């Protein structure tokens, strides 16, 4: 027998938390789950040394301790069929059913290939932040932060707080566009304050625009990088390189559930109406999965989804705030658009698929994901194309293909719970 809940929320970041809290306030029995061991998502990830941000801690405690809430940490959705979710945690697999489902699956980093990107010591920018918050040793380490967007500042601040020697922040956008973006910040006072506070925390750390990490080198681990900037190529010796080019929505579950997708650039996001409903009956989506919009937007959309899913009325001011928050995301996208030079960084021998070690030259003759996969194994590894498929889409090669269960690698015992292809009447 599957466990039944009024509302199931997938993802415990700001969108999921707001959705769970809103649904609980309307008397619903709520299950909320996340792949991570603690709630908060990426942006509110608990820091082993410093705890949660204060606002996050308050809401996490309220939701976790609520009598009608069931918190399922380290839990992933492996499949979904006929109104049921198949879940897996470290010790078991089980099914749950729902009256309404809220997808708050967030985003991952856009990680793009360049020579040396597989070396130990190279991570994402948000990736290094996540690692540091969970105790990754950075004290005294020489760290370079690179890529694009305001996340670089947050990553640098986290690295510094954990004792790293941050050698520099290298932003690919030009100085002119970054300044133009900064001049628009007054429209979002919360963001301005955040920017001022980050600037203060990062005093003394060089922030260089129009600069791209073109290569990482090292013997078995990272030793140095080459940064291509307005004044030529600079070689920097370092222990860690954290490079992220923005965020990409995690749409795998939504896609499998049949939600309508739209594309933002090369990457799909879930289309929703004003109440965050996906168009599939009883399925809502909120936050980054609906297009990268940032923390404030995620929080507001989560609240809207939680209210809508429990049949409550939604205040017009909430919808107005959500639109304003989405406008910030548009401004971000416009000003931090990627320099096409980045797409030319990988050489013929640069590995694109890190799971199966497939170099760029092996992919030249393929113009779709399926053909590349059949001939080279590109995208067949444990990450299921989350890294290489997304990178190839961004590079303008071909869109990521073949999304189907298991949505994450699963244990055999869990797969035993899946409906067989025969019982679904299809071998596709």
């Amino acid at each position: 027998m599957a466990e039944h809940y009024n509302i199931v929320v997938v993802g415990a970041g700001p969108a999921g938390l707001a959705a769970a809290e809103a649904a609980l306030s309307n008397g619903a029995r709520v299950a909320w789950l996340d792949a991570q061991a603690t709630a908060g998502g990426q942006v509110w990830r608990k820091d082993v040394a410093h705890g949660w941000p204060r606002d996050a801690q308050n809401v996490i405690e309220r939701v976790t301790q609520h009598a009608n809430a069931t918190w399922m940490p380290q839990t992933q959705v492996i499949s979904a069929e006929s109104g049921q979710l198949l879940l897996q945690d470290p010790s078991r697999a089980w099914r749950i059913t729902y009256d309404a489902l809220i997808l708050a699956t967030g985003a991952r980093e856009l990680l793009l290939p360049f020579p040396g990107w597989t070396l130990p010591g190279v991570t994402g920018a948000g990736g290094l932040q996540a690692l540091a918050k969970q105790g990754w040793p950075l004290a005294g380490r020489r760290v370079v932060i690179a890529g694009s967007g305001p996340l670089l500042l947050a990553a640098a601040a986290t690295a510094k707080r954990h004792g790293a020697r941050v050698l520099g922040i290298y932003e690919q956008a030009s100085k002119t566009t970054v300044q133009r973006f900064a001049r628009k910040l007054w429209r979002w006072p919360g963001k301005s304050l955040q920017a001022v506070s980050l600037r203060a925390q990062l005093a003394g750390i060089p922030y260089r625009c129009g600069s791209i990490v073109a290569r990482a080198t090292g013997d078995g681990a990272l030793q140095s990088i080459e940064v291509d900037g307005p004044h030529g190529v600079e070689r920097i010796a370092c222990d860690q390189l954290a490079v992220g080019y923005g965020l990409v929505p995690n749409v795998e579950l939504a896609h499998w559930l049949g939600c309508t997708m739209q594309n933002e650039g090369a990457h799909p996001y879930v289309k929703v109406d004003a109440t965050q409903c996906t168009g599939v009956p009883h399925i809502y989506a909120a936050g980054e999965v609906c297009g990268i919009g940032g923390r404030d937007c995620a929080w507001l959309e989560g609240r809207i989804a939680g209210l809508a899913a429990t049949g409550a009325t939604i205040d017009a001011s909430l919808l107005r705030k959500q639109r304003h928050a989405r406008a910030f995301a548009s401004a971000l996208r416009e000003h931090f658009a990627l320099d096409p030079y980045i797409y030319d960084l990988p050489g013929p021998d640069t590995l694109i698929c890190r799971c199966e070690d497939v170099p760029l030259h092996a992919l030249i003759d393929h113009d779709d994901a399926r053909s590349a996969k059949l001939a080279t194994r590109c995208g067949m590894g444990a990450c299921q194309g989350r890294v290489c498929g997304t990178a190839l889409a961004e590079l303008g090669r071909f869109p990521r293909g073949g999304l189907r269960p298991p949505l994450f690698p699963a244990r055999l015992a869990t797969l035993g719970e899946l409906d067989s292809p025969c019982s679904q009447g299809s071998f596709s």
Partner: protein
Amino acid sequence: MSTVRIKIDGEALDVPAGISVAAAIARVPRPFRRSVKGQARAPFCGMGICFECRVRIDDIAQQRACMAIVCEGMQVITDG
């Protein structure tokens, strides 16, 4: 801060309680795994997406070290 004792490839190590297995291995340090062509790999995405950090934990293979939290007596085998 309290500590827990774990073993990484048979070597005992005291680490702060609550840190990830990835952060524990980084204290040794050593490659987390070898790629299909033998390259050393280590955590990359930090959030459970890329699977570069997978190791054997308490006899269960292919666990993401960035998603697991250390606990007393845990046995970690790299490249597992």
